[in-house]
């Protein structure tokens, strides 16, 4: 797709073309922000378009081919895509409900889908240790390209944090099991309830399998590090959530304080209210704005009665024989740190006490050490090359949160998939999956300009909120109704469409500029290219004699199609540009 960056006059592609030019990957990164923001590179415009065309099966498969667990992610994904959605730019409204639409595809699919394509058996055997999102994704990818996979997990059920960390009111277990089953159906041998390093030594796995991938997650709870942390009534948030998931919740007091600002903190507070505590408050050092959780999550938690106590930090936990309260100090924004983010520093002399009889500590999780050969870092964890996922022992690989520290489910899935491809290449010397940019001729869509003004359809929930608290497993979000889903799918601009003016035919009439809804079409003196040869910017001009081209800035374009409609000489072309993954022979080509 050199046309859009070097020779503005080249006509659009007339057939399907694949490119692996870094410039084209750069184009995708800038111009299709949702897909680029997804760690698994889910083709968001394509699956939303499929849903719009009333094809939930197709939409689900587009999802599944990238993120493996669409039904799960359609509920609990951290949605980095929505933060980057062009519809959410300041003057354009709210981002598209990308995540909620993913769930619509998962809920409405016919379930008649055929098994994923599988390459013939390669004769290689891989052990995957840890059946969380990273391990499941890696197992899936290895199994589909012809490897025999044995999946070990220390817990009785697969799913890792999905099963033992995320509460059932956010992620129903029947749906989770169904998607895990579909992965295991690829012929993966599941050995649950087996701890590697204890029940079976890692050395034995390394000798019995061609490769071992450890995706062990982060099951260590960080401590706050204040006096009183060992008092009865102080509970690790992670252990609390795991005990609840195993069906043996601990007894809680009437007034619970949760220390922490992540998803676990919210899960703890919302679970505590369902398990009999009268008052649950989340105590955070910064402000609500800094929450890593979604706005919906914050709203739902508040609706259920969770209180947010911002701008404070715990100093010590008080009590003689059990927790009686927590002493905090106030914080205020300080100077920006090296990451540009402002730190929040304690205000001297601002001590105060909040009474409580339960304190749930959810200030972070970390990887636990593992009995395995190989070099260790300063924390006692295996040394891992993050590019290749290789440890220091041949055949032993690591991926997911265990390597990176606690992250998102979608991040773990992406890491598991990347590690699987690396292992497959290392074991066979072949390339199994390859990312390319696919370009196809397209026309302007049937999107109506008025669709840009449709408000975001919010997720319906069980109400009144008290009724959710009765049964722990009542799923709070009930899914977009069909009419809502249809409306929401209209909102996507379809940023995978690339608009381009053929300058050899342009007559500089500027009708396109007059019809443009925002400053997306520019009169430029010069197109600025980066090292890869991709468009990195434009030198605009208002002096007519300096105008060398009229260009469409696809990073500003909302794909309304007005320019194409008004062009008197039909010199604006549309190309469908997608980042896709090719498997097997196609990839090897």
């Amino acid at each position, binding site marked *: 797709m050199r046309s859009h960056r070097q020779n503005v006059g080249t006509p659009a592609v007339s057939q399907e073309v694949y490119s692996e030019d870094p410039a084209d990957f750069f184009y995708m990164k800038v111009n299709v922000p949702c897909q680029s923001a997804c760690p698994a590179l889910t083709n968001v415009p394509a699956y939303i378009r499929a849903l719009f065309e009333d094809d939930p099966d197709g939409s689900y498969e587009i999802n599944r081919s990238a993120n493996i667990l669409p039904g799960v992610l359609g509920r609990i994904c951290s949605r980095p895509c929505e933060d980057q959605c062009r519809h959410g730019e300041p003057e354009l409204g709210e981002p598209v409900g990308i995540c909620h639409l993913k769930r619509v595809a998962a809920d409405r699919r016919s379930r008649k889908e055929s098994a994923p394509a599988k390459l013939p058996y390669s004769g290689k055997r891989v052990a995957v240790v840890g059946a969380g999102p990273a391990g499941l994704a890696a197992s899936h990818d290895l199994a589909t390209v012809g490897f025999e996979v044995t999946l070990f997990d220390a817990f009785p059920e697969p799913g890792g944090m999905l099963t033992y960390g995320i509460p059932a009111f956010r992620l129903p277990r029947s749906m989770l099991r169904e998607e895990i089953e579909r992965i295991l159906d690829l012929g993966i041998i599941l050995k649950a309830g087996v701890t590697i390093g204890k029940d079976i030594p890692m050395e034995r796995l390394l000798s019995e399998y061609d490769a071992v991938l450890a995706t062990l997650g982060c099951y260590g709870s960080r401590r706050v590090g204040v006096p009183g942390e060992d008092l009865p009534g102080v509970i690790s948030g992670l252990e609390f959530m795991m005990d609840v998931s195993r069906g043996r919740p601990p007894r809680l007091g009437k007034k619970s304080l949760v220390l922490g600002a992540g998803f676990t903190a919210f899960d703890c507070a919302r679970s505590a209210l369902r398990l009999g505590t009268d008052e649950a408050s989340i105590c955070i050092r910064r402000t609500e*704005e800094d929450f890593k959780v979604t706005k919906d999550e914050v709203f739902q938690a508040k*609706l259920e009665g969770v209180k947010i106590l911002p701008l404070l930090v715990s100093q010590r936990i008080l009590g003689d024989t059990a927790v009686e309260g927590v002493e905090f100090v*106030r914080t205020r924004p300080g100077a920006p740190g090296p990451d540009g983010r*402002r730190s929040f520093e304690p205000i001297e002399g601002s001590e105060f006490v909040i009474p409580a009889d339960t304190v749930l500590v959810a200030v972070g999780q970390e990887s636990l050490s593992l009995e395995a050969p190989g070099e260790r870092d300063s924390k006692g964890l295996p040394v891992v090359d993050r590019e290749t996922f290789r440890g220091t022992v041949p055949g032993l690989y690591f991926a997911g949160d265990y390597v990176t520290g606690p992250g998102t489910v979608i991040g773990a899935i992406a890491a598991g998939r990347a590690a699987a491809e690396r292992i497959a290449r290392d074991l066979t010397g072949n390339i199994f999956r390859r990312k390319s940019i696919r370009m196809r001729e397209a026309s302007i869509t049937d999107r109506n300009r008025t669709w840009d003004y449709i408000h975001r359809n919010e997720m319906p929930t069980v*109400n*009144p*909120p008290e009724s959710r608290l009765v049964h722990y497993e009542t799923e709070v979000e009930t899914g977009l109704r069909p009419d809502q889903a249809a409306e929401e799918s209209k909102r996507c601009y379809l940023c995978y469409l690339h608009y381009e003016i053929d300058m050899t035919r342009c007559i500089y009439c500027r009708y396109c500029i007059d019809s443009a809804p925002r400053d997306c079409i520019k009169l430029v003196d010069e197109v600025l290219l980066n090292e890869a040869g991709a468009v990195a910017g434009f030198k605009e001009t208002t002096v007519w004699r300096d105008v060398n081209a009229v260009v469409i800035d696809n990073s500003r374009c909302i794909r309304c199609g007005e320019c194409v409609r008004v062009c008197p000489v039909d010199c604006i072309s549309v190309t469908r540009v997608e980042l896709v993954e090719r498997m097997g022979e196609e990839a090897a080509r």
Partner: protein
Amino acid sequence: MKEEHYVVVGNGPAGNEAATTLRDKAPSARITLIGREHRMCYRPKLLPAYLSGTIEEEGLYALPLEHYQEKDIKLRLGQRVVGLIPDRKELVLDHKEIVPFTGLILAVGGTPRIPENLHIFRELMFTLKTVSDAKRWMKHLREVEHVLMIGGDLTSFAVTQALLDMGKRVAFVLNEESFRPLRSSPEIYEEAAHVLKARGVEVIEGRRVRGMSRLGQDSIEVMVEDKRISTQMVGAFFGLVPDVGFLVRSGLHIESGVLVDETLHTGSEGIYAAGDCAQVYHPALRDYWVSIGHDNAANLGRIAAQNLLGEQIEVRVPAESIFQVDGIKVNTSWWKEF
């Protein structure tokens, strides 16, 4: 030299005081005041009186247009600010215009608060913050005889009186929320219940609103605990929350308002906040507070303007005049006027 352009967002007492102070202290600067409503600066406190017809609309307005002409302040009404880019010193307006500034004072005030559990019934409830709100009330009141007041802040008592003056029947769900921003106490509660009953208001005590549904054009059923109450109109009075949603992605720190230091500085160069939207730490309270009321707002507006021009004045409010509401300390003085 680059021309100084000071922009004030918010056409209330804090914003107007800030703009006037800027003009007095910086005679040659360009000053722009941006207001979201299409109206001149008015006194929200008079809205209940306007509602009942005691005063005319003209009586609401605080400053004539000549004031802005005289002070050479560019007044831009009906313009909604939707974004702020502090590094570039630019505001983004709803209609996509970019407004560059050299100094900015945010004085956007508050917006009616609706508790999370009543959000889904928003369409069924009337709030009273703006002249447009008051006009909605007046139009609807022509058709109805009975009004149910829920939540309850101090404005609601003034509105109740206005409704009684108009000969309407009023029911009032009185609970611990009914004294915002004052903390409820048995004495206040008793006294309020007694006064309301004496004036003929049906008092529904100590109960929580669970839901409501529209049965017909002028018929709404409200579920208060297990009791169903029929009414024709519902007034919701849960106080105000600072209207700072548009700043969320700006990089400024937002909590219940814009977090500022004792000089009302936001931490971003040249950007200050004043009035109901500024949240300041108070050493004696060991907590943050938000101010409410005309005089406090004007005072903060003046200080923000002076500090923007280089002074270092700290806001000082006596701790006794600050009350706690829902974990937010609120500086009030206006309630004493009731």
